C-alpha cells in the first residue's frame, strides 16, 4: 500500500483541478514522440509523425493523449489503490499492446515537464516531488501484470 501524506494528496489534486486534460495529454504524448522518437513504433496507425509539426497537429495523437490523461484521472481518484484500479490496463499493455514498460517512465517524465511548462514557478519542487511519486506509482501499477 502506498502511503500518501496530506500534502502530497493536496499537491496532486490541486494541480489536477487546474489542468486541461486534453491539452496536457496532447503535450505530454507529443513530447514523447518527438524527444524519444523510437516510441513511434507503437503508433504505426497514427498517420503522419514525420516531424515535430506533424506530431503537434496530428488529431490521433491529440485524441490518444486525452485517453491517457483521462486514465490518469482514475489513478488520482483512487490513490490508495492504484494497483487494483490499473490491473486491467496493465494486462492490456502487456498482452495486447506489447508496450515496453520503460515507456511508462518516459511518458511520466514528459508529463512532469508539460506541467512545469503550464504552471511555471507554481510547479514548486514539493509539488513536483508529489507528482514524481505519482508517476512512479502509476508506472509500477501498469507494469504489475507483465510476465
Amino acid at each position, binding site marked *: 500500500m502506498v502511503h500518501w501524506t496530506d500534502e502530497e494528496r493536496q499537491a496532486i489534486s490541486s494541480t489536477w483541478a487546474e489542468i486541461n486534460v486534453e491539452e496536457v495529454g496532447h503535450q505530454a504524448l507529443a513530447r514523447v514522440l*518527438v*524527444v524519444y522518437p523510437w516510441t513511434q513504433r507503437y503508433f504505426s496507425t497514427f498517420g503522419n509523425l514525420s516531424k515535430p509539426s506533424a506530431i503537434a497537429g496530428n488529431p490521433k495523437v491529440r485524441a490518444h493523449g486525452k485517453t491517457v490523461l483521462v486514465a490518469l484521472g482514475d489513478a488520482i481518484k483512487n490513490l490508495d489503490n492504484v494497483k487494483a484500479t490499473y490491473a486491467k490496463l496493465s494486462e492490456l499493455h502487456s498482452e495486447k499492446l506489447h508496450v515496453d514498460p520503460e515507456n511508462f517512465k518516459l511518458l511520466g*517524465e514528459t508529463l512532469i*515537464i508539460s506541467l512545469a*511548462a503550464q*504552471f511555471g514557478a507554481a510547479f514548486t*519542487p514539493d509539488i513536483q516531488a508529489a507528482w514524481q511519486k505519482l508517476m512512479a506509482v502509476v508506472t509500477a501499477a501498469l507494469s504489475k501484470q507483465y510476465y
Partner: protein
Amino acid sequence: MTLSAHDKELVAKTWTKIAPKAAQIGGEALGRLIAVFPQTKTYFSHFADHSASSPQIKAHGAKVLGAIGQAVSGIDNVSASLSKLSELHAYNLRVDPVNFKLLAHTLLVTLSAYLGAEFTPEVHLAWDKFLALVATVLSEKYR
C-alpha cells in the same frame, strides 16, 4: 546519438535567453534534485544545510549551470571543454553517473518552468541530447 547542427543551434539560442538568469536556474535545478530525489543529498553531506532550499545548494547549482554554459560555448567539442571537470568527477567526486540523468531531468523541468511554451518539444529534444552528451563526457574517465 550525436548533436545535429539544428540541435546545437537550439541549445545556443536557449542559452542566450536564459543566461541572465543562469544562477537562479542552476540553483533551482539542484534544489529540485534534492527535493525530488533525496538520495542525492548524500553527495552534499559536507554542506551545513543540504536541504532543497539551502543557499549552499543554490550556490552550487549556479556553479554547475555555469559549467554547462561553458559546454554550450564549446559545443563542437564538449569533451575538450569539460576535460578538467571530467577528471574531477572521475578521480575526486566520483558521483555515480546515474545522478547525471536525474539532474538533467530536473534541469529540463526548470527550463520548462522558466520558458513555458518556448520550451517546445524540439528545444526539449536538443537539450535532452546535449545533457546526455555532457553526462557521457563527465563519466568518460571513470574506468
